[in-house]
Structure formats: C-alpha cells, structure tokens
C-alpha cells in the first residue's frame, strides 16, 4: 500500500497525536483523554492522553510494571477507569461492559494467552465472529435453514481470516494443543473476527523466535492493509516495535514520558534513562 497517500499534509493537529503530520481523517479511531486508574489509593496510570488514527500502527512500550496492560484493560473496560474518557470513533465507552466495548470496535489479545483451549481453531474464531453471525436462538435449537446458511458463511469467513495469518490448514486442530506461536496468532485472528476498528495486541511476539517475529510483522501489516484497521500494540521486542509502529508512546510509572516516531523515541534521553537507568548511576 502506498503510504505517501496516507501521509498527505495534515488537516488538523490533535495535540495528543503521536505523529502530528499524519492525516487522521476527520476523527481519530481512538481518542483517550486524561485516563487514570487507582488501585486502593495507589495510582497505577495517570493522565494518559493519546489518539490513534485510522489504520495507524501505534506502539505502547515501557519497562515492566509501567502500566501498559492496565491501559489495555481500561480500554476494554476489564478495569473501570477512575478518571478520564475514552472515545471510539467519537463514542464514549464509559459505563459500557466489556462485550459492549467489543461491539463498539475495540478488540484485543492477551499477554497470557486466553484461548478456548478445548475447542477447535475454527470454533475459536467463530466465537470471535459471534456478534456477526445472524441467526437467533430458535435457529440454534432447531438448526433451521438460516442456521445452516449462517454457519456456512461464517465457516468461509473464518478460513479467510485464518489465511491472513497462514493458519487455514489448522482449522480443525484443538486450540489448546497448538504450538505457542500459533496460539498467539490465533488470538489475533479471533480478535480480528470481531470486526474491530482498532485491535489491541498485548505482547504478540512474546515467546516467538526471530523468524516467527518477522513473519508476525508481515501478518500485522497485511491485516492492517486488508481490513483497514488501526493497531495498538504492547511489545518488548524493539525490532518489532521499531519495525512496524508508525508512532510510539512510552509509559513509565503509569505516566507517558515520550511520544513520537520510532526515530524520535530511539534518541530520546528520557526513554533511554527509563530503560537503562541513569547514566553513570
């Protein structure tokens, strides 16, 4: 895909955007303002501001315990934020349950893999498609023609999605018995099946070897290009982060310490300090 088309001169510069020169369209997909959460008086994340544009791949990095996964948990309302607001395509997620947030267009994967282990790869992805399979309880119980039609359509769609991650031939495997890397990719496919506007990937390359990681990077780009979705990812593998993220946000002790392009982040002294500790200390 021609990236230069997307990087036409800016129309409007939202102050929170990682890359100001980027065309964000009329409205960012994800607009996070002053987000914060306290756990029993302890502030885990505070004043988190970020916007993610359409089809942008954004990276969220930071040392262990910086609050990265907590941000994801707030974005999906697994944790209810204490402060701030989250807008998905202009709609606030406040007070919504996790499944409603998914319907609004935020899908995610988990750091500690959470698959439906006893079910087939096919069924795992079909569950991701749950809200888009159109038949009702009556059809479910009596296996009406509408049921058969719905299942047939979803089956085809699942194979299509699995193919993006090179997993179409594993459709009948039991999810829990897949190799680690495949389980991670299956989680992404399942999230993709919810037809999100933005997909949150929590350490997608954890436990993968370099060649698997390289393939994953291609998969993520293809996914973004084919489905026109935004991606926000947490990752410790700097090759992956610097390789595919267009904008990066660095979190330390629950606060954003830097935002910018990969080049800017790599040369930012505060980031280097957060990762490597104070020089000469």
């Amino acid at each position, binding site marked *: 895909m021609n990236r230069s088309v997307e990087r036409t001169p800016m129309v409007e510069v939202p102050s929170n955007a990682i890359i100001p020169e980027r065309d964000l369209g009329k409205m960012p997909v994800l607009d996070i303002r002053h987000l914060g959460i306290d756990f029993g008086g302890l502030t885990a994340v505070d004043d988190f501001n970020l916007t993610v544009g359409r089809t942008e791949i954004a990276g969220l990095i930071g040392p262990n315990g910086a609050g990265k996964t907590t941000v994801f948990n707030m974005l999906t309302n697994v944790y209810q934020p204490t402060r701030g607001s989250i807008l998905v395509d202009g709609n606030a997620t406040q007070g919504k349950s996790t499944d409603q947030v998914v319907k609004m267009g935020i899908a995610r994967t988990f750091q500690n893999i959470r698959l439906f282990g006893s079910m087939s790869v096919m069924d795992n992805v079909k*569950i991701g498609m749950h809200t888009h399979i159109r038949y009702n309880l009556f059809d479910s119980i009596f296996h009406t023609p509408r049921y058969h039609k719905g299942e047939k359509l979803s089956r085809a769609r699942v194979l299509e999605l699995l193919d993006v991650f090179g997993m179409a031939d594993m459709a009948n495997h039991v999810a829990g018995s897949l190799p680690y890397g495949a389980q991670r990719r299956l989680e992404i496919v399942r999230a993709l099946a919810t037809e999100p506007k933005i997909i949150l990937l929590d350490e997608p390359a954890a436990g993968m070897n370099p060649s698997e990681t390289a393939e994953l990077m291609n998969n993520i780009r293809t996914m973004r290009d084919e489905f026109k979705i935004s991606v926000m990812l947490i990752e410790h593998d700097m090759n992956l982060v610097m390789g595919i993220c267009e904008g990066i946000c660095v979190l330390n002790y629950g606060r954003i310490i830097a935002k910018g392009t990969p080049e800017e982040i790599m040369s930012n002294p505060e980031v280097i300090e957060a990762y490597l500790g104070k020089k000469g200390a």
Partner: protein
Amino acid sequence: MKLKKATVNKLITYLMVIGMFTAIYILNEGGYLSRQLQKMLVPICINIILAISLNITVGFLGELTLGHAAFMSVGAYSGCLFSIAMKETLPMAARFPLAMLVGGLVAAVFGILVGIPVLRLRGDYLAIVTLAFGEIIRNVILNIDFFGGASGLKGTPRDSTFLIAAIVVLITMFVAMNLQSSRHGRAIMAIRDNRIAAESAGINLTYYKLLAFVLAAFFAGVAGVLYGHNLASITPDKFDYNRSIEILVVVVLGGLGSVRGAIIAAIIMYILPEYLRFMKDYRMLIYSIVLILMMLLNSSPAAIAIKTRIREALSGVFKKSKKTAINGKGGSEA
C-alpha cells in the same frame, strides 16, 4: 461426501439411543421384559433427561450447581397440580404435553431466579448457593399445605409411559446437541473455557449464563413432570440435595459436556444399584466403592498416565503388525 467428525458423533448418539429404545419398546410390547425392568424404564428416561439438562450448566457452561433437583421438584409440583386441575376437563393427549410445558416453564422461571446470583458468584460459592436454593424450595414446599406437606401431593394421573418418556429424551438430546454446535452453544462453552476472553469476543455473559440456566431448568422441570405422572404421588424429600448430587455424579462420570456420555452414565448409574440388590445390605457399600474407584481410575494423573502407556503400547503393537503385513504383502509380490 465427507461428514464432519462432530456430525458423525451426533449420528452415532442418535442411532445408539433410537436403536436401544426401539429394541426395548419391541421387547416390552412382546412381554419379554421382567416386571422389575418394566418399572425401571420411565425412571431411567427421567435420569437421562436430568443428566443431559444438568450437563448444560455443569458441562457446557462450566458452573457447578448442586440444586438441580429443585428445578425438578418445581416442575413436578406445577405439572402435577395442572394435571389434577385438568383431570376432568382435558383428555390425556392434550393434558400431559401441556402439563410438561407448564412444569418446564415454571422451572425455567426459577432458573432465572437462581441464575441471577450466578452472575455475581463463581465456583464453590455458586455451588453452595444453588444447594441453598434447592433446600429453600424443598423447605417451603414442605410447609405449604396446598402442596400436601410432608405426606406429599397425591392424585396425579399416571400418564407417563415409556414411549412418551423416550420421546422427551430424544427432544432433550436434540436440543442439547443442536445447541452445542450453534453460536449460542459456542458462546456458553466459551464462557466455560475462558470467561474474560469470551467477554472480549463480544459475548454478553449475563445473557448466556442465564440462557444455560433457563434451558437446564426447563428440562429438569419436564423430567419432574414425567416423574410425578409416573408415581402419581410426590413428596418433597425426593428432591433434596442428595438427588441433585446423584445427577451430578452421573454427569461427571459420563464426561463433562458429553451428551452421549451422560446418557450411558445415567443408564448405568440407575441400573447398577438395582442389580446390586442381591447383595442386600452391602449394595450401597459396593456402589460407593465403585464410585470412588471409577473417579480414581478416570481422573487421577497416575491412572491416566498408565492408561496412555497401555494405549500407546497397544497401538505400537498394532502398527508393527500392520507394517509386517504390508511388508509381507510386498514380499509376496516381489
């Protein structure tokens, strides 16, 4: 045409049950069954229905409940009261199916009532709350004169026949197995496998948990109606937590989530104590020892490891012999 594995599995289950029911029906009509066996037919069907329905909550949804007999009692009492009231008004052919519907629906309403705390509780806390619900219902029925109190409700027409019970078994199977391979069933099983991931796939936990509870309660209620119309009189003590536990034992032995397993286990666990009668006083003792041994053999990691080793050894022998057979064939050709 290549059939999917799941479809084949379903077909086997249907063929097994229909074949068995037809054989029993023919034997029964021909008068070949002993009185003892005849009396057991409807109760076995009731046990199968209870096991399949409990499997929806314990096996599909993965929530431990210890109050299934309470849904059965609610169904039994409401269905029997309906039949007693309609004894003169409606013919049996209309009255009995309606009674089952009434019993099932009333039980389903109680399923929602019990399901609500389920939304907040999990695991052992849920188990104890369902047990408590069951005991409350039994206690309340016991103390309302309208229901006949401790001496029970009498005068229900004896409408249950093996044929009707068998048909209800087939309907229950049909619903449970169809559900399993539908988007609704998948959503319920997804909650079992990983609650948080299910929610993050857009599944509304409240709706699907309640759905599982309501369906399970409905069929337990229908089983209760069959039960009441088989005995003509019902007493609250038949629906205590021990009964719930008996059903749970069947579901666990049959294999969680397996409809076929539940059916086989329901039959065995009903017949076993009956056929142990010759051991008189030792009957229940043997039963409990068999139960413990079955659990140890089925679930202990050591026993499972030994079983896999034996299976591997056997398949190794099998493969070897197959290989030699092929080689032998090749040899003869050469």
